[in-house]
Every structure is written in structure tokens, then in C-alpha cells.
């Protein structure tokens, strides 16, 4: 799942999706946590017949945003808050192929003005993650390559036409991701990942819409695709993680938010963010991990300057031993 997501309809959502992505990445990491003996992190897969699952809560907020290139606030919305509760699962089909799922429920609200928030099930995503290669580097480390193909699909008919309060874009998406990472036994960890996401057209409830310099006489909106990448590094050992990362999303087309107008579903939404991830193994409860992920938007275009915190716990079941491990 990590892959598909960078794309979000509204400024405020971009954050939540981003964190979902990170989340997915970490998820993978989490699953590998029990494999202390080997190398870890993204390169490491959840091993066969294990299921790593949990619920994450994400709180995302911004009160400034970029209207095209213009950095501003807006008295009609104040701060936009997005709360997401996601069910997450990662199943080890084999040691080299993992299946991942995310099911998010999203609620939005504005602190000023009269606009009603939206709430509901957003887009579920499914991913197949495959480890392509693992190359030992010296005795103490390894470089791993992974590919992820993922797709996401709206679970409900929520409107994409109420940005920045819409739950999402209502676009079906397919994404291809490649990840390279290096982990040393002493915990040194480096990761680089990049994805391209194809987004299907979106249908509005109205017969025309204005974007990118013209009125389209159609209810169908072409969604530009999205490119993203992230680089990160830090420490990761014995179920404990402390990683910082930098990421960028680039929408490959789309118009700017017009002056004093609301965002539009196909806007060119770009951002760069810094983030951090902490995982802590819970004392005495084997296979249960506590997660905290933080993100801050450094710069953007047609997105909110959001700060995001995601937190949750993941537990790993092992079906090789005739059911749950514990």
C-alpha cells in the first residue's frame, strides 16, 4: 500500500495520504521486526504465513496553504483538520511476496466559517510487495531492492467536489513503486523509494467545471498522474526505529487554485515534507509494536502546510504454528 497513495484531492488530505504511504513503508518494517537475526527494514519482508495488523490514527492540521504559488491563510476555513483511522494488514504470502491492505475512515472539519465537514470511508488500497534482490555488502550489511504494485479504490460515493473538505479524490489509482535500502547490523539504516501513480478520471455531480484556464463542458475530470520519492535514514535495530525522512510529491499536470477559489480535485498538488518515525517494542508483549510518525510540510503548491502525527500499534500473528502465535 505504501505506494499508491501520494495523491490526494485536497490540501489537507495530502498529508494524510502521505502519512499513509510512510505508514505502509513502516508497516513493512514493523513486520520484519521480529527477524532480528537478519537484516531489516524495507528490504525485509514479512515472512511466510505471518500477518501483521493494527489500527493507526492520524491527526492532520493546517491553517496556511499555497494558492498556486501564493502562501496564505483563509478566514473562510481557518484551520482544516483531518482525522483518519486506518485498519492495516500485511500478510506474508511467501518470504518474498507480501500482500497489504489499508482501509481508512476519514473525517474533516474547518475551524472557521460555515462549511460543514465531511466524514466517511475513503479509499481502500491493496498492494503486492515483492523482494527482488538482496545483495550483501561486506559482512555487516545488505542492500535490498523491492517493488510494489498497488491500487486503491473509493469505498463510498463521497464527493470529490468539496475541497478542501472532501475525503479524497474519488479516483481509482494504480501505482508502481521501487525501493532500495541498506541496513547494517549495527542499526545504520538508509532508504530511498520512488513511485509513479496513475489516476483514473473522476466524475462530478455537475455538468461543467472550470480548471486550468478553461471551462470543461463535461462531468468527467482528467486526473494528472503523480510522481513521488522519499529518502531517509537513521537507526533500526531490535524492533526499535528512529528514522528521519524527506519526501516530495509532484503532480504531473493540473491547474492552480484560483484566487479566493476553493481547491479543485485535479489541481497540481505538490509538496515537500520532512518526517520522522519512531517504533518502540512494548515491554513484555512480544510482537507488539508502538508507532509514532510525524510529518511537516516544508513547501508546496495547492496544498496545505500541514503537520501530521500518526500513531498506532501493530501486532504480528504467526500462522505457521497452527493459528495465532500467542
Amino acid at each position, binding site marked *: 500500500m505504501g505506494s499508491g497513495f501520494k495523491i490526494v484531492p485536497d490540501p489537507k488530505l495530502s498529508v494524510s495520504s502521505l502519512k499513509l504511504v510512510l505508514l505502509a513503508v513502516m508497516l513493512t518494517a514493523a513486520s520484519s521486526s521480529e527477524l532480528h537475526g537478519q537484516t531489516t527494514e524495507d528490504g525485509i519482508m514479512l515472512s511466510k504465513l505471518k500477518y501483521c495488523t493494527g489500527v493507526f490514527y492520524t491527526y492532520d492540521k493546517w491553517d496556511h496553504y499555497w494558492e498556486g504559488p501564493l502562501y496564505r491563510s483563509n*478566514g473562510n476555513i481557518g484551520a482544516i483538520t483531518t482525522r483518519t483511522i486506518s485498519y492495516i494488514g500485511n500478510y506474508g504470502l511467501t518470504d518474498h511476496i507480501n500482500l497489504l491492505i489499508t482501509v481508512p475512515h476519514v473525517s474533516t472539519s474547518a475551524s472557521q466559517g*460555515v462549511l460543514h465537514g465531511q466524514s466517511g470511508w475513503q479509499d481502500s488500497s491493496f498492494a*503486492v510487495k*515483492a523482494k527482488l*534482490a538482496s545483495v550483501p555488502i561486506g559482512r555487516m550489511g545488505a542492500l535490498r531492492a523491492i517493488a510494489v504494485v498497488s491500487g486503491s479504490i473509493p469505498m463510498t460515493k463521497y464527493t470529490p467536489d468539496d475541497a478542501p473538505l472532501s475525503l479524497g479524490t474519488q479516483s481509482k489509482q*494504480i*501505482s508502481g513503486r521501487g525501493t532500495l535500502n541498506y541496513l547494517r547490523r549495527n542499526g545504520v539504516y538508509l532508504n530511498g523509494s520512488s513511485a509513479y501513480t*496513475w489516476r483514473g478520471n473522476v466524475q462530478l*455531480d455537475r455538468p*461543467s467545471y472550470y480548471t486550468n484556464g478553461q471551462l470543461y463542458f463535461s462531468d468527467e475530470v482528467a486526473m494528472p498522474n503523480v510522481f513521488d520519492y522519499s529518502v531517509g535514514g537513521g537507526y533500526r535495530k531490535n524492533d526499535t526505529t528512529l528514522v528521519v525522512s524527506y519526501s516530495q510529491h509532484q503532480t504531473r499536470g493540473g491547474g492552480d487554485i484560483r484566487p479566493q477559489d476553493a481547491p479543485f480535485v485535479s489541481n497540481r498538488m505538490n509538496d515537500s515534507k520532512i518526517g520522522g518515525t519512531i517504533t518502540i517494542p512494548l515491554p513484555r508483549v512480544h510482537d507488539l509494536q508502538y508507532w509514532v510518525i510525524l510529518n511537516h510540510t516544508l513547501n508546496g503548491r495547492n496544498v496545505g502546510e500541514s503537520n501530521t502525527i500518526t500513531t498506532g500499534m501493530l501486532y504480528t500473528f504467526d500462522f505457521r504454528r497452527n493459528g495465532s502465535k500467542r
Partner: protein
Amino acid sequence: MTTTMIPKKKTKRTILKLLRLLKLRTPLSLLKRPEMSALLGLALVALAGCGKTIRSTETLTLYSAVSADAKAGTWSMIVLTGPTQVALAAPALASDPGYQAELVAIESAQAAITPDQQAAVQYWAAGGALRWNEELRQLVARQDLPPSPNADGSYPAPNAANPFANPQFPFSNPPYAARAYSYVSVAQYEALKVAWYYKYQYNRAAPFKSDSKIKALMPDNQVPSFPSEDAVEAGVNAVMLKLLFPTNATEIDALAAQQQQAAMIAGRATASDIAAGLSIGQAVAAILSARAATDGFKAASGNSAIWSQLAATATAKGEVPWISQDGPPRPPMLPLFGAVKTWMMQPSDIINERPAPPPGTHSLAMSGELGEVRNAVNNISSDQLATVYKWADGVSTPTPPGHWDFIAVPYITGALMSEVRVARTFALLNMALHDAGVACWDAKYLYFNPRPSQLDPSIKTWTGLPNFPAYVSGHSDFSAAAADVLGYLFPSGASYFDSQAKEAAMSRLYGGIHYPSDISAGLTQGKRVGEYTVRFARTDGAN
């Protein structure tokens, strides 16, 4: 560095296993490399990526009119005193060498036609009045942007004398748009009636009829070619649109030039047909421009003294006055638009058609209405929410009047109307929409009634809240007037128009924008206003 791809084989095996599991039939060759995941991704992706191109122009079917409406030169005028208010000298005879040279020029142009020119001919062949209405909706949506606030919380105002400054002139909000649609449509209709008068006075055959070497590249509209109706439209629309949307002059001029050239290349008009049409279009546009300059619109924004007085008047009546809920608070939208000149109504008619006052802001009836709004907003269904967004018609849209022009389009094309009758349809529809806007604005600022979200801040709206008083609902007023006129013109669609009007009106209750009484009074007023136009249409000579 030696890159030993140790897991390659194993990966391939597992992927194959996975694919078998998923019952996917993928060519084995695809799986021979570990990068297959990427390839598979690309393939899936190609599926998702297809069909991305969205046509930006309206899809219109070409048709031949069932009647040329040869008598349209006698149909009632609206602003002009009669067709001869604009003079047009007789054209040269067919035998005239100058005219013969014009025909030869068309032959040459047809022989050298470019793909772009063919596309332009196809575009305009669907009907100039329809295409210009499409452009008008385009311009309204483009200019439908409220000014951004200044740092001190005040708002700059668009300035017609300096249209390119920030904020651009105009802000084509619903009243501005209603007036614009009506001026352009009426000017075009008047100009085409003048053109029809001269067409049948001079009876010059179309080029493709008088010269067998000229092909008809557009449907034969069966009308004499002098003056060219296409050039009339180009002339009248270019002047009116540049008056109303001055920052778009380049685009407007290019369209006008393209329409004239398309008419010529299509074998429909010669250079002298076009020159005559252009002169008529421009002359009629000048008459309508003069009317626009003095119709009261320039004063419609009011000033801070007027804004304060509106609140003071409501307070003196014991009512809670409307306040802007924009952040920061914005001056009310066009408070004196209710005094702008109408097409089919006298100022006394506007007063006569005023709705009775809304429930008092402190009354039991009003708290009941607030309860209804709360209930509608908090228990909205997904269908109702879709209706809210269908009819939002807020910022960056053609506005509710434009939405009704859009609704009329398939009925117009389906009726196989002559060009002058298409223009009549748009003129009647948009006169009623403008008059409804004026009547509605008169009531809004007479009563200065607060929005539901002002009286009860717990009420949140599902779409943007307009920055003007609630009573009566503009959506309801516009829609009922439009449905009334369209129902008269297209009786087979009357119940559909009516259902659309009610849906548009109710969308404002679902959205938390309006009380039930705003909607019922707006629908009633709109229908009554629409009848003024229908009464004119019954006796205008076109039936």
C-alpha cells in the same frame, strides 16, 4: 561491487506461484525478469491511464433547420424600434465583377483548406448562437471569482476602467452573469432579426448555390446570404462580450474572426455578405451597449453608507439584520441590483411582484424554519448531497443562469431551429433570468434577512454560502423563471424543467443555505416573473 542476484530465481518462482494463485494468465515471457513487477505495474497502469482526455467544448450535433423563418424580420423587437433602425444598402448584383471575384476567392479557399480550418468549420457548423452561448458560459465561469481580502481585512473592488488590475473586472457573480447573458442574447437576437429583414429584402443566393464550384461545407440553412448571419453573430458577440468581459478581448476577437472565416470557407458567405453582417452586428451592439451604460448597474455595488443603512432599516423594524459570514466580512453583493433596468417588467412590476415578508427573525415560525434547516443538513442523504453539488453553481461556474442555458441546449438542437429562432430562445430565457435576478435582489435587500447559519451558528453548510441576504432564494427564483419560459417554448420538456427547478431550489435547503420559505417564495416569484417574458413571446410574431 559484485551484484549477485541470489534471490532472483526464487523470486521468479514465488511470483509465478502468486499469479497462479490469483488465476492470472500472464505470458511467461513477462515473468522472466525480476523487474516483472514493474512491468505488471505498467500494464495495469495503462489501463488506469486511458481515456484521460476530456473534450473542453460542448458536443453539439449538426442539423438542418426545419424552417428558415423567412418572416423573422417582422418579429417584435425588444430594444430596437424596428429592423430599419439599422440601415443596410443593397448588395452588388450577382453579375458584378467584384462579387464574382468574391466567389472565386471562396473556391480558392476551399481548394486550400487546412485541417485547422476544417475543424473550425465543423465547430461553427453546429450553430453560431449555440457556440457563442458556450463561450459566454466560459467567460462567466472564468471571471466568477470574488476578490481576495486585503491584509487589513478590507476588500478591493473590480474596476471597469482598469479591468486587468487585481481583482480583475468583472467579478461575474450570479447577478452580473444574469445581466450579461441577457445583454448578449438580446443583442444577438435583435441583430439577427435585422439581418433576416434584409436577407429577404435583397434575396442574395448563398455562394454554394450561385457557383457550382463552391461546396457547402455546413448544413444548408436555406436562407439568403446577404448579410451573413455568421458575421452578424461575430460582430454583435465580439462587441458585447468585450464590453462585459474586457480582459478576454484577445480570445473573443479570435473566435469572431474564426467564425467569419469559417462561414466563408464553408461556402455560406462572401466577403461582402460578411462585411454587411459585421456592420449590422456592431451597430446593434452599440445600441445595446448604450442601454447597458445607463441601466443602473454601475451603481449596484452601493457604498458603505448604503450598506449601513440596510442594516439600520432592518434593525428599526425589530429584525436581526443580515451580516456577512465571509472571513473577513465582505460588503454585500450588489445591494442595488434590484434597481437595475429589466427587459419585460416596469419598475412598478418589480414592486408588485415583491414577495410578502419572511417570518420575523424572532418569530416562532422562524425558529421552526431553522429547525427544518438543521434537520435537512444533519440528516442529508448521499443523493441529496449529490444534488447540492450538482446545483452549487458557486465560484468559478457559469452560475445558475448559465446552468439553465446549459439545460436549454439539447432542447434547442433537438427542435432543429433556424439560427434566428435559436437566438430568440436564448433571448427569452435570459431576459427572464435577468428579470428574476432583479426581482430577487430587490426582495433580498428590502428584507435583508439573515442566513440560517447566522441565526443558528450550529448550522453548517455543505457548499459555499453566498454573500447576500437569504430571502428569497436566488436559485429558486432563477430556476422557476427559466423553467417557466422553457416550458412554454418546449412543452414536451415542461415537467422536466419544473422538476429541475424544484430540485435546484431544494438543493439549497439540503445544503443549509436557505430556509423553506426562501425557497417557496423564490419559486413563486420566479414563475410570476417568467410569465412576463412568456406573455411577450406569445405575441411576438414568431409563433
